């Protein structure tokens, strides 16, 4: 099992390297001159050129890239073109807010989406099932930034219960977390429902019934545990989507997280910030995926056996 984790961690390196190449290339091929963006339209061509030299922008692309990678390996993600401060510091200060939001929405996803999905599946075609599937479908069809604004409209502007923007304490977390949580909870609910429906038709469920097991235990233990693998997969993907969509959410709620930092950087061509941000998010996403794969092993012994194949021979079925 540890060997499997080790292998996976190693495999992440080329992927992250690929991400770095990709983002580096597309940024440097995009129109617009960062130096010009920093100095403004009125600056003379000489000052712009001087800044370009200073920032190393005139060097051949692959030299710039290798210098960058070298820096990354030592934890140096370069300097922001605008603030001239180390990118890594700004990222580390701002990332926690983004992560808190993402984590909270995962909680909402699981607490809201999972139970409703289970109940829907066990009472298929009932009123509750049809109502919740419809509501879930609506929830999936709304852009998250719109949900956020609607929440602000009702709970902040009309009712005054919660603050409009900022990130100064738990009360500030509620609306943003729900604006991304609702969307994801709807997705989880649909996935739970469909996964449970599939599992509940299985033969081993019939066996459990023939043993005299109660419906409740059948649903919660026999069915749910077997249905969990695709559900957890989607939870992982949703977490990634939230991290990726942080720019949007943080924009709606004026949250000083990594997303809003990156958004400003994109608009002002602050390459190192964008690169650093993308790498951090991609790395986090890869770790989440690895975590999901590890959790698989704890749910399904067949998957656990697959992971161990490289180490020990799989226990052969005892011959007749």
């Amino acid at each position, binding site marked *: 099992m540890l060997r499997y984790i080790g292998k996976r961690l190693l495999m992440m390196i080329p992927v992250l390297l690929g991400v770095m190449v990709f983002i580096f290339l597309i940024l440097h091929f995009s129109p617009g001159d960062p130096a010009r963006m920093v100095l403004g339209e009125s600056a003379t061509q000489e000052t712009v050129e001087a800044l370009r030299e200073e920032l190393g922008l005139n060097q051949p692309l692959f030299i710039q890239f290798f210098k960058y990678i070298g820096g990354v390996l030592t934890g140096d993600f370069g300097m922001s073109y605008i603030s001239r401060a180390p990118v890594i510091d700004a990222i580390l200060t701002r990332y926690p807010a983004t992560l808190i939001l993402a984590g909270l929405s995962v909680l909402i996803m699981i607490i809201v989406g999972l139970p409703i999905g289970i109940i829907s599946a066990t009472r298929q075609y009932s009123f509750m099932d049809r109502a919740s599937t419809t509501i879930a479908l609506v929830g999936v069809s709304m852009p998250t930034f719109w949900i956020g604004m609607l929440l602000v409209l009702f709970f902040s502007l009309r009712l005054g219960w919660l603050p409009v923007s900022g990130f100064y304490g738990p009360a500030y977390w509620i609306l943003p977390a729900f604006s991304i949580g609702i969307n994801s909870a709807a997705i989880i609910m649909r996935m739970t429902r469909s996964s449970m429906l599939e599992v509940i038709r299985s*033969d081993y469920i019939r066996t459990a019934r*023939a043993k*005299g097991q109660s419906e409740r235990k059948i649903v919660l233990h026999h069915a749910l545990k077997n249905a969990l693998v695709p559900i957890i997969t989607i939870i992982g993907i949703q977490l990634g989507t939230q991290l990726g969509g942080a720019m949007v959410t943080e924009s709606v709620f004026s949250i000083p997280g990594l997303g809003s930092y990156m958004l400003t950087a994109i608009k002002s061509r602050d390459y190192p910030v964008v690169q650093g941000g993308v790498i951090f998010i991609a790395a986090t996403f890869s770790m989440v995926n690895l975590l999901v794969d590890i959790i698989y092993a704890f749910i399904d*012994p*067949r998957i656990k056996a697959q992971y161990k194949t490289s180490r020990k021979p799989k226990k052969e079925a005892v011959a*007749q």
Partner: protein
Amino acid sequence: MEQETKLLEVKDLTIQYITDESTVHAVNNVSLSVERGKTLGLVGETGAGKTTIALGIIGLIPDPPGKVISGSIKLEGEELVGKKNAFMRGIRGKKISMIFQDPMTALNPIDTVGEQIAEAILLHEKVTVAEAHKKAADVLELVGIPAARFSDYPHQFSGGMKQRVVIAMSLACNPDLLIADEPTTALDVTIQAQVLDMMNNLKSELDTAMIMITHDLGIIAEMCDEVAVIYAGEIVESGGLAHIFDETAHPYTVGLFNSLPGVAAIRDSKRRLSPIPGLMPDPSDLPKGCKFSPRCPFGDETCEKAAQDLIEISPGHLVRCRNWIKPKGEK
């Protein structure tokens, strides 16, 4: 003095699957009985209704769309039809157990086999978890699996071993009746023989009555005391083993025997297979009159017009046919 020798008594059981499009008449007025410690074989082709009868007895007819329309199922004199699910849960696994056809998918992949057997025990007996585990290990040994494999998962077993685990699970609480729905159909022939052998031994050791559902006459010959032949949801012939094999009376049963290679050659010096022409009728659109008449070589207009009741042609031997085939020498 009351003599309740019959463990299970089914009378006029009718089960239908009712959907918006059609009503499937799966089981039509079936009556049968099983005595303590004896084995009843239910023979018939796929789709005849054998599994539905079994599910009806154990109360696992999916509702919707299935419904027990009428009839009575008495276990040791107690009526089961109409009982609430909570009551039936106490019966399932404890008094009546059922095992199904495909062992590959019958076990929960994420629990160890030992836990799955122990689960059955813990459901019906007041024992501690440790005691249940011990008993489960004993039952594993009973079916020929080393107790050490208690903590193994189903995917670590072969098909035949999985079926043994399923059998162990079903017998763990020493039920009075075991319903086996084609338990060996999915297994290799040699494994089949082993599993059937084991079932026979266990049956006599634990004095379990059994309903063996199969389409294989060879298995019937090996394992059963009484036999009922099912066609289109009805019993067309029933009786003791000797009645069915030596004094075959219903044209369908005769056809079944003639469809077997080898058996036909022995019985009637025929060398060619003579399969029964045609197909079983659509259960949502059954013919009026005798349901076998469209395919019956002896059928006539009277057969097609009026449904036939069961006739007792010799003590314990029932046939649903006007033109039943008399034993050799008579006509």
